[in-house]
C-alpha cells in the first residue's frame, strides 16, 4: 500500500494539470534531512520565508524536515542564528521542522554553542559549513568539534557544497569541501555519526565515497547528485542504508529529489529506505 501511495506521488508530478506533491496520500512519512530556513545571501526565492518553506514541504508530502539556516554561512553571531532557527522551527514548523544548529569551530567559545544546541534548543544534531567558515576536515579544531559532538551523541551534518562554483558571487567563492580526510577520522572516532549533504555531483567523481561508505556511521543525501540514473549508482556504490532523502529546499526545487527516485526506478523497499527508514535509524521519532 505504501509503495502504491508513493508511486502515486511520483507519477503525480508528471501528470497533466497537477500540482506537484498533491497526490500524496495522507499519513505517509517522508523525511527530508536537508532543508534551510532564512534567506540565501545573494538571491530571494520562494521558500525563504519559513511559512512558505513549510508550504513547499507539505506540497511535497514531507512529514519531517531537518533544517539548518542560511544565515549560518555569513553571520558571526552564530548564537543568534541558532536561536532564530529554533524559534522559526517551533513557530512555523508545526512539528515538521527539526532544527540543526550551526557551529563554527574557528570562532571563540564554539563549545558553548554546541552545548546550547543540544541542551537549550534540544537539537538532535548540528550542520557544519567548512568551506564558508574556512577550515578543512584536517583542521584540528574540526576534529575537536567532531569529537565533542560524538561525545554528546549528536548527528553531524557536513554541507560540502552550497552553490555551483562557476556562478558564485566573486566575493563569496567557496570551493566544495574535500571529504578525503573523513574516513580516517571516523575510524579514530568510533562514536561519531556524519551525514554528508551535497557531497557529490556523481559517483564517478566521488573518490571519497567508497571509503566513507565502509562505515555504518555515515549517510549521504542526493540533493546535489545529478546525472541519468545517478541515484541508482549511488545506492549501488554506497549501499541502500547509507542513502537518505535530502532535497536542499528551498534552494533546489523539491521535485528534483522526488523525480530522481522515479528515474532510478526504486523498488517499494528501496523507496521505503530512502524516504524514511534510513533517516529514522539516525533519529528515532522525537
Amino acid at each position: 500500500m505504501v509503495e502504491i501511495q508513493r508511486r502515486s506521488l511520483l507519477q503525480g508530478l508528471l501528470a497533466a494539470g497537477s500540482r506537484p506533491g498533491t497526490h500524496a496520500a495522507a499519513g505517509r512519512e517522508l523525511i527530508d534531512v536537508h532543508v534551510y530556513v532564512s534567506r540565501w545571501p545573494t538571491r530571494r526565492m520562494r521558500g525563504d520565508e519559513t511559512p512558505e518553506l513549510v508550504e513547499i514541504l507539505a506540497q511535497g508530502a514531507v512529514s519531517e524536515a531537518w533544517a539548518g539556516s542560511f544565515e549560518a554561512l555569513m553571520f558571526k553571531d552564530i548564537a543568534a542564528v541558532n536561536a532564530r532557527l529554533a524559534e522559526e522551527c517551533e513557530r512555523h514548523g508545526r512539528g515538521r521542522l527539526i532544527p540543526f544548529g550551526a557551529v563554527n569551530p574557528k570562532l571563540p567559545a564554539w563549545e558553548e554553542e554546541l552545548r546550547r544546541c543540544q541542551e537549550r534548543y534540544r537539537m538532535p544534531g548540528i550542520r557544519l559549513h567548512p568551506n564558508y567558515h574556512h577550515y578543512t576536515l584536517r583542521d584540528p579544531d574540526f576534529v575537536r568539534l567532531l569529537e565533542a559532538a560524538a561525545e554528546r551523541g549528536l548527528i553531524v551534518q557536513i554541507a560540502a557544497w552550497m552553490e555551483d562554483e562557476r556562478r558564485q558571487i566573486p566575493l563569496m567563492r567557496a570551493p566544495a569541501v574535500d571529504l578525503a580526510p573523513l574516513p580516517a577520522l571516523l575510524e579514530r572516532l568510533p562514536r561519531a555519526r556524519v551525514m554528508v549533504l551535497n557531497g557529490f555531483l556523481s559517483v564517478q567523481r566521488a573518490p571519497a565515497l567508497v571509503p566513507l561508505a565502509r562505515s555504518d556511521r555515515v549517510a549521504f543525501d542526493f540533493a546535489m547528485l545529478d546525472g541519468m540514473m545517478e541515484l541508482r549508482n549511488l545506492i549501488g556504490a554506497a549501499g541502500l542504508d547509507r542513502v537518505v532523502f535530502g532535497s536542499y529546499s528551498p534552494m533546489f526545487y523539491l521535485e528534483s529529489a522526488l523525480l530522481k527516485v522515479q528515474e532510478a526506478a526504486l523498488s517499494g523497499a528501496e523507496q521505503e529506505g530512502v524516504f524514511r527508514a534510513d533517516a529514522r535509524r539516525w533519529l528515532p521519532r522525537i
Partner: protein
Amino acid sequence: MRIWDIHCHPAESRVRGRTFPEKLEHVIEVAGRMGIERLGLLVRADKDAREIEQALVRYRDKVFGLLWMTLWNDRPERHIDALNRWVRDGPMVGMKLAGNDGVCSWPIYEPVFEHAARLESLIFIHAWLKVGGDPPLPGGLLEIHESRPQDVALLASRHPEMQLICGHSGGDWELGFAAVRAHSHVTVEISGSWPTRGMVEMAVRELGAERVIFGSDIPGRGFGSQLAKVLGASISEREKQLILADNLRRLAAPIFRRKGLSLGA
C-alpha cells in the same frame, strides 16, 4: 503534460550499453519512465555514422538528431558539406555547438550559420558564463572556443531572421537571460545546471514562456533534476506546457514537416 527534451547525449561512455543502439534503447527506456515523448540526440557523426543514421530512422517517432559540430578545426565549406549530408539530405534536423567547438559570434563561422538557417535547421549553441579572471568577475573566465550568451546575442543581432537556441541559458542564468533578452528570436534552453529554485520563473518573467525550452543534458544531468526546474516552478500549467514541449515543436515544425516527421497529435 507532453514533454520533448532537446538535449541528450546517448553516445557517452557512462550510458549503459556497448553499442550506440543499445545505449539509445536504454535512454529511451529511462525517458519513457519520466513521461518524455521525444528526445533530441546531439551526436557527432564522425564515428558510428551508419548506426546513428539507422537509429534516427528506426526511432523517428521517439528521437530526432542534431549534428554536433566543431567549427574551429576545419574550413566552413567542410561544415556546410556536413550540414548537407546530415540535415539537408540525411535524417537530422539541426546543428549543435558544445563548449569547445567555436565562438558563435566569430565572423568566420557566419557562412555555416547562414547555411543552417537556409535549411531551416535548429541551431543550438552551448553558452556558459563562468566566474573567474583577475580580479574574478561573473563571466570573467573565458575559454578560447566557448560561446557566451553575449556571443549568441551578437550573432542574433546580425541575423534577425535566424532562430537561435541559447544552450544552458548561458550557465549563469541570471546573467544569461539578461544577455539575450533583447533578441526575441533567441530561445533559451534550461539544461546543464542544478535545479535552482527561481531559474524558470526568472526566464518566464524576463523573456516570456514562449522563449524557454526544456533540455536535460543527460547523462551528465538527470531527467529528474532538470524536469524539476519546470514542474516545480511557480508558473502556470500553460507556461509549463509551452516550455516542456510546445515551444520546441513550434521551432522544429518547418523542418519536421519538410522531412515528413511527426510533431505528434
